[in-house]
């Protein structure tokens, strides 16, 4: 195994001895015990594993840790908690925007990235930003409402 990899995750530095081509997802889930990012396909097709790397929504299942070195990473745990949720998380709770919830990490992270880029998205822009995130339970209508609500709440 190569040299240690250094990752900045949710504002904390971590040194890990893992192979540099290890997908970030497994380090987050198994080494750092962060549950938010999920394995859905491992193929960059579904979005369940989404995290923010330097503010961009990135599919951690297909993103090697070596590429993540030196770039601040935020996961859903870094946004907020049950007691102090981020406005996007609060909006998902308010709209009850989950059925099984397996996809929801990806939805929250993609929405957060969108709202950082475009604080005032219209409905088409929200749909477009989430176009690559799959949900099988059919929670789409609520997710769209949640993102619109978050945009309102976060509006300056």
């Amino acid at each position, binding site marked *: 195994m190569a040299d240690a990899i250094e990752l900045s995750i949710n504002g904390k530095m971590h040194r890990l001895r893992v192979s540099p081509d290890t997908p970030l997802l497994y380090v987050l889930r198994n080494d750092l015990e962060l549950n*938010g990012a999920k394995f*859905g396909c*491992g193929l960059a097709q579904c979005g369940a594993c989404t995290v923010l790397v330097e503010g961009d929504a990135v599919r951690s299942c297909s993103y090697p840790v070596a590429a993540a070195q030196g770039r601040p990473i935020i*996961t859903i*745990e870094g946004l907020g908690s*049950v007691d102090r949720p981020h406005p996007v998380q609060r909006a998902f709770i308010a709209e009850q925007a989950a059925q099984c919830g397996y996809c929801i990490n990806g939805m929250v992270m993609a929405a957060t990235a969108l709202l950082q880029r475009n604080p005032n998205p219209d409905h088409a822009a929200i749909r477009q930003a989430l176009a690559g995130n799959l949900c*099988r339970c059919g929670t789409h209508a609520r997710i769209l409402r949640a993102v619109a609500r978050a945009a309102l709440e976060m509006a300056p």
Partner: protein
Amino acid sequence: MTGLALTRRRFGQAIALTIAFSMAPRVGAAEAAKLPGSLEGNRMLDAWLRVNPDGTVTLFTGKVELGQGILTALRQIAADELDVAPSRIRIVSGDTAQTPDEGFTAGSQSIEHGGIAVRYACAEARGILVKLAAAKLHGAPDELTVEDGTIAARDGKSLTYWALSAEAQLRREATASVMPKPPERLRYVGKSAPRLDIPAKVTGRASFVQDIRLPGMLFGRVLRPPTYGAELVSFDDARVRRAVGVVAVVRDGRFLGVVAGREEQAIAARDELARAATWRDETALPASADIYSYLKSLPAEDHVISDKGGDTPPPAALSSHAATYTRPYTAHASIGPSCAVAQFKDGLLTVWTHTQGVFPLRRDLAKALDMDVAKIRCIHVQGSGCYGHNGADDVALDAALLARGSGGRPVKVQWMRDDEFGWEPNGPAMIVELRASLGAGGAILDWTHDVWTNTHSTRPQQDGCNLLASWHLAQPKAPGKPAIIPQPAGGGDRNAIPLYDLPRQRVTHHFIRQMPIRVSALRALGAYANIFAIESFMDELAKAARVDPVEFRMRHLNDERAIAAIKAAATYAGWQPGVPGGTGKGRGFAFAKYKNLSAYLAVVVDVEIERRSGQARVTKAMAAIDAGQVINPDGLINQTEGGIIQAASWTLKEQVRFDAERITSRDWSGYPIITFPEVPDIKVTVLDRPGERPLGAGEAAQGPTAAAIGNAIAHATGTRFRDLPLTADRIKRVFG
């Protein structure tokens, strides 16, 4: 993360009631009266709840959370019947060591069977506590009031459930003699309650079986044969053992698996397994293009499930009509591939699983592993939504087989995306042929419905073993015999009997035992295609009769609630008869009473066809649902919205592809589902009927949505499409 598992165990150990018979059990088991819902099979009150001295109540349910919000709803029911705040109620669900056996959580029956059991058990427990308090407070039980577990007498003296918990005797058989509260006295039932699990799920707290972490846990992956029937000719296990991080390689017959210290190592080692194995393959699947004629050519058992009016001579018809509808194999396609954690310790096997039935799974695990059921504990932990029988049970056996080869360390196995698509049991293909004749005034005189399909459930059952890996072992197990799910609920013939009142009808279920593609229960079972066919055909007949399709349906109905649901949806959507079609924009209507004995749902959809591509887009869906007494209105709406969107996805896009050897839909590009830009705007209105029985509603939207889309596309294009899915290709050929 051991949190999930440990917390559950801790709940189970919560010190609860014992001692003192204040009331003797009323009757012996032999003469026991039939009890409501799941109480019948699990008759002891303390199997359902315990009142704890620490001010909490523990509720035990054999039903499990699948993302449908059942635990939230059960908590509302219990809170009302017990008169305690919902926050005091902890729920233990689906654990063979702790909870009642309620079979499977399926078929929209959790409220109908599990909910009613909780209701009666809690009402009776409240009665026991109040009686006990009455004796101590020297008052009559009906003069006492209960508020959040505090029982008060008129003179202001009071006692709490928690203080009485040690004395109140719940270790006794339920009698269902205490009537649950009438609707007007319910405080929580009927009001939208926020789901218990959502805050954790949007903040990344451990919620899923995929999130379980146990000390010393290893990661496993399996390698399935390249086809259903491939035989393993040679296997170079040394090669796999050399791969980085590999702890164990398990081969049993043609079952292959690998266990590694890290998850990505297990995934890489799975590729090594593939390189190390040579297979001989003679599997031949039927030609995908001819699948329906192939299925119809197989031997079938014919069951006439409805035959009426056939003894009178056929009346003179003005016109006769016939149409054939087909539905392809459809995948559950859960977003999270199936997962389980297993551990062997001191001769005991513990499996953490997202199965829909911990008890049936345990039985099949015992068969597959040649173990005593008493040595196996299955604990439900949520997984990704399943919508029926997906890989959840199969992966539990995979994990157990790998854990058995891992020297007592726990092993987590998650399927890869291609495992899930390639091996999950699909929703069965179906062919529905309808014939009808019309008389004066557009009355339907005569109706025949023929449906050909496989069984719609190969879940773990009494006979055989229905876990995938068990068929691949050196000593393979035989699968259970495919069986019919009897009417009135039905399986492949679910909803095949029209709800319409027709003078003559004959409905035949042609049950095909042979299964070229692995199949099992998918949300709504046969109801999806039967309703698609019936409700498409009703529109076709209405058109022939020159009657508005909504009006046409109502003319053939006597069921008041059906008519009310149809009117509600039509009004809600502003339905207008006689809007000219063929413009590329269309509106469609459809209705069904799920299983002919559950929720009523009517829906109007709008579609737009993109002429260039032929792509139909559902822009709006407006539905009315009557699910009897509503427990959690927002939960009901959430389920209905989800059902509509999922059904739109099935109807417009989905079909499992296969070639002569294997399933070829192996990832999301080979099995596209609906995406955000494609989902309709949805509105759902609920017809609450507080005085009626609550009805399961999770599957009510599937059939009507499909038919409404088909009807809207027929309206938009002037052409009827009867083969699902209603893809751009198919539409483009005739409209563009």
